[in-house]
């Protein structure tokens, strides 16, 4: 039993964070370069979950939490799942379904989308060209379909859990980003002749953000290991990770805006990017109550 990253994993996490800081800074999230995906691809993040790489879920969760911290393209989630279970290469868009409506996120240049319907991961064939428009999350495009697209299910039932796990990792990263943004601002912003982080009203909001992020991250690690070990209760642990990570991302993003005050409500400042990403992630394989209450 060991739930701390080993030296190789620590090195991967810091290399990922370094690259993201240089090439995918949150400050530039609204005007990302057109070849960002090619750069990500060239760095190996799209291929790393391919079957020949034999990457364990624990290491994958660590890397995806870092990518999520920088609000990386959401198609990385669907592409990772398609690579692992279907040996697909290239960009696979992320599909979100609700009732008869299917939304394709990050679909430009993709011919396939991946999403989960009734606990099964499905691959959808996309028409070309896709008429995508901007979405709530400024880093993501959306295309809506109210007619069914031709699709097939991925045979392995674990693919749906895999998508839920990496989406939880993205949400943990988003929760971390919001926490750090708030704490950073609370140190430099002064009112009443002192940093606002001096006041317990602000300090305790930030502490709660740290608690939510730590709780969600711990469960993410456990869930990743449960999936790696093929444990029977892996589905429960992944659902628990997703539930806690979604809450941490959303609640931390909301608190971050409050800590920032007026500037936090603007388009110009960064906090709304975390909020919008957190809302988006809530629709990616949400944790069902029944999965959390299942009898072991």
């Amino acid at each position, binding site marked *: 039993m060991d739930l*701390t990253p080993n030296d190789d994993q620590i090195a991967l996490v810091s290399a990922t964070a370094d690259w993201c800081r240089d090439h995918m800074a949150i400050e530039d999230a609204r005007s990302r370069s057109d070849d960002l995906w090619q750069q990500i691809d060239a760095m190996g993040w799209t291929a790393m979950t391919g079957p020949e790489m034999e990457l364990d879920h624990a290491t994958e969760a660590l890397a995806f939490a870092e990518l999520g911290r920088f609000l990386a393209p959401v198609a990385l989630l669907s592409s990772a799942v398609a690579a692992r279970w279907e040996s697909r290469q290239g960009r696979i868009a992320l599909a979100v379904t609700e009732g008869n409506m299917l939304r394709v996120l990050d679909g430009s240049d993709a011919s396939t989308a991946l999403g989960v319907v009734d606990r099964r991961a499905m691959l959808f064939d996309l028409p070309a060209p896709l008429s995508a428009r901007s979405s709530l999350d400024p880093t993501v495009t959306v295309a809506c379909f109210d007619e069914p697209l031709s699709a097939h299910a991925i045979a392995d039932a674990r693919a749906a859990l895999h998508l839920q796990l990496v989406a939880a990792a993205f949400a943990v990263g988003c929760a971390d980003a919001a926490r750090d943004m708030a704490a950073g601002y609370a140190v430099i912003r002064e009112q009443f002749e*002192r940093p606002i982080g001096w006041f317990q009203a602000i300090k305790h909001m930030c502490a709660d953000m740290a608690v939510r992020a730590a709780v969600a991250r711990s*469960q993410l690690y456990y869930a990743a290991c449960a999936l790696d070990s093929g444990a029977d209760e892996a589905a429960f642990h992944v659902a628990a990770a997703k539930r806690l990570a979604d809450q941490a991302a959303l609640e931390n993003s909301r608190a971050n805006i409050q800590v920032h005050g007026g500037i936090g409500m603007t388009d110009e400042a960064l906090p709304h990017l975390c909020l919008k990403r957190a809302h988006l992630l809530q629709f990616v394989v949400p944790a069902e109550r029944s999965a959390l209450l299942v009898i072991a």
Partner: protein
Amino acid sequence: MDIGFSPDEARFREECREWLNANVPSEKRPINAAEAIEFDKAWQRQLFDAGWAGINWPREYGGRGLSIVQQVIWLEEYAKAHAPWIGANFVGINHGGPTLILNASEEQKAWHLPRILKGESIWCQGFSEPGAGSDLAGIRTHGRIEGDELIVNGSKIWTSFAHVADWQELVLRTEEGSRRHAGLSWVICDMHTPGISVRPIRKMSGQTEFAEVFYDDVRIPLANVVGGLGNGWKVAMSTLSFERGTGFIADQVKQSQEIEELIATARANGTIADDRIADDLAQMRAEVAAVRAMTYRNISEVMRTGQPGPEASVIRLFTSELGQRLERMAVRLKGAAMLDFRYGDDDDVSDYLRGFAATIAGGSAQIQRDIIGERLLGLPKSR
């Protein structure tokens, strides 16, 4: 990273389970204080004789010298077997003993540690005072040095088990005119010394588990100072950081039993059909799982580096608040039957009422949030 246990650890778990299944007392821990203390002592002695006391304490002081992972396995099986709360031995096992292991002299350790493990000496904690609660550095109880003794005057409050304790971990001011964290000392106080009087305080749950303690020219040998005169703050903090690290593992593992019992109760009495109750149970089941994950993460950190990580204070805060949510759910599932509670009952209602202590004792939830904000996030110190 992995969540598996080695074959040796799995065998150890089997050993724990077998012994507990054969030995856990069938009768409940008595609620009456005098009977409870006899029960606690007898159970602790039984644990010691069978080699289950102080699993990760050093062998030379009566412990087993095993790893913290084995300690966790023991506590997990202990909770699953519904073994009794260690009760009055809590302070000795979880505060006094670990502080002595870290800070005391050989003589002090050799005399006290085996007696704690055998359940022969009951300990209490003398930290809080009427004027020093969250602001612990405001301690006023003082000891004047006279020859090779301290002459102690003052009072302590919220002292759990003071009325039955043999020994106390007493933090007091030993340097006249000193202020705040300076000039404090951590001493071993014999609770049977003349000049000590104890006024038990009844809790809103009906139990009399804590007390106010008065010191009137109490003579304590200077040899009872632990960690050196004037170093009391540092010694006391070593206990508190232990508490915030691994001292609450028993509570953490107990929660995983409690949530399963709540879900079973809600299914049995039909309240699970209420969407809000079902949702809250689902949420808490996820949170309890996360507490286990955090505990394992913290223990992994201890195994790797020798000490708990900076997030240990997060576990303490989250576990205490989750415990209260679980207790609140238990009374919610009871419905109006909650109103039938009377002092003397030992049930979900008394647990709920006692449970308020979790976010007050050992550093209130607000103090914990200050610590997290300042030490984890680097926010400016407000005090």
